[in-house]
């Protein structure tokens, strides 16, 4: 090692190489993961904690030479299990906090558009609550950008089941919301 910077202990040097990969993943996936967890019903704080834990696990996984294949579904699975472990009230909150804060999403829209959007969202929120747990999870993971086979990995179910479940959920939502 050259003299101007402090020599790094070996684990840190290793860690620095891994951290490039991990940092890219963090940038790309932190928000989708948070969104997934919050939509599952975790509080913002809980979701932050679960995501932090997931990335700490990722560091360990990469540092111990773990496979980098399917790392996206790996992270979602860790986060999913983390959420499961700390959550008692699994789906109570999904769709609930929307009504007063809806302006956040439509601040550039005209008043009529806002009213329409609110109405649509209200109906969607209700319809989402009527989905089964697995339908909701599949859709949320799908919204997180995962492919069917990745969703299947996260939830530990066959890909064909994911496909059927998503189809069913989409159909239900389309009916309820006249999309």
């Amino acid at each position, binding site marked *: 090692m050259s003299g101007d*910077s402090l020599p790094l202990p070996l684990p*840190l040097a290793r*860690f620095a190489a891994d951290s490039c990969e991990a940092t890219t993943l963090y*940038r790309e996936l932190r928000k989708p993961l948070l969104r997934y967890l919050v939509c599952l019903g975790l509080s913002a704080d809980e979701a932050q904690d679960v995501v932090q834990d997931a990335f700490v696990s990722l560091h360990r996984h990469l540092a111990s030479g773990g496979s980098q294949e399917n790392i996206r579904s790996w992270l979602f699975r860790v986060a999913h299990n983390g959420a499961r472990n700390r959550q008692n009230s699994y789906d109570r909150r999904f769709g609930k906090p929307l009504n007063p804060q809806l302006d956040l*999403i439509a601040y550039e829209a005209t008043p009529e558009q806002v009213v329409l959007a609110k109405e649509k*969202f209200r109906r969607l*929120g209700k319809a989402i609550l009527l989905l089964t747990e697995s339908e909701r999870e599949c859709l949320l993971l*799908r919204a997180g950008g995962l492919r069917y086979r990745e969703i299947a990995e996260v939830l530990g179910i066959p890909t064909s089941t994911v496909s059927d479940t998503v189809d069913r959920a989409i159909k239900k939502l389309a009916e309820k919301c006249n999309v």
Partner: protein
Amino acid sequence: MCSFSGRLVAWMDRELPDNEAADAERHVRDCSECRTRVDTYKQVSRVFVAHCDAVMEATTHRRPRWVPVLASAAAAAMLFLVFQPASVKQIRVLPPVADASPAIILETAPKPVKTVHRRRGSAPAKTPNANWVLPETAIQIAIPVEAMFPPGAVPEGITFIADVSMAADGSVQGLRLQP
């Protein structure tokens, strides 16, 4: 139901090989049933994602949290923080919220000592001297800048390592920055 429907999602996920993708595109153009399915799928997905974003916004719309970072910091006798883009001036090292009982003297402490529970990993043997320092690193954590600072506070492309030494009671003993 159209026999092609099973492959529609694979096509939307761009998982089909080129020649099959071209077939699929042609098919969707010609088959009204599949076209309707794809349209519904996309519309519901869009609304659903917007809904998730709104739930996320509504739930997480507040200041970033410092406490968990510091809590885990207190768990370590020495801590390396690797920030991705960051600027030196922005670093805030707050003292941990914790139960700071600086001198843990065995003869006088009948109460359970909380600091012991907060240490993770290989906890060193407890000594009556509160000012001992671990010989080497305990924990290394990479924290991308957006987790610590408000957006835009830190220019892109700057990386540094903050080398934080902590006392046994969780207070910060020293902070050294390396580019």
